[in-house]
């Protein structure tokens, strides 16, 4: 995905956003929330731009095998 989202995701420090959803518009972080639907409701209004909602599992409960 040679696009804005994938470039932003490559740089995203996921540890910093553990347990949150990050809303990206054209690769820029516009909001974060623990509630994915809250992020979606705001970003769903954005037209003609690249939208991504990246949810990062919590550091506490993520499975280690």
């Amino acid at each position, binding site marked *: 995905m040679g696009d804005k989202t994938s470039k932003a995701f490559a740089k*995203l420090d996921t540890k910093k956003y553990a*347990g949150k959803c990050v809303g990206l518009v054209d690769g820029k972080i516009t909001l974060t929330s623990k509630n994915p639907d809250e992020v*979606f409701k705001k970003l769903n209004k954005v037209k003609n731009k690249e939208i991504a*909602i990246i949810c990062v599992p919590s550091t506490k*409960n993520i499975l280690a*095998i």
Partner: protein
Amino acid sequence: MLDFSNKKPIIFSYKSSVVKTRLSKETIWRPVITVKVGKSKIGLSALIDTGSDKTISFMKPFGNWLGIDTDDFEGEPDELNGLFSSGPAWPKHTDLWIGDYRFNVPIFWLTKPFDIESDYQMVIGRKVIFDNFDIVFRQKEKKVYFYPNR
């Protein structure tokens, strides 16, 4: 003999997490990539799981965001038992982009709600995706390479 010299891969970096167990805390790196899904092409993150046959996500909220309705489900549900997700899930063919490559993938939609504390938004399994890419995991480099093979 594999020869990737004439192929241009899509490259993703592994993403890190801190895992706390009862006795220790360590940083782990996993092949988590971004994909675009559905007609609206919303970007989501997805764990690449070579041990999973199927691609899996959650109806609530992601399927709902994409406008997928339970009436759209194809056939009977499967009971999934995986390390990263489990429970009943219904298949629905859904468009999924990796880079500029589009695939119509049977995504198995779990009906249990997504838990941000413990779930990945999507788990990409072998069916369709692994048929269309030769995927190379470079653990030391913390990168995963998707070589298109069509």
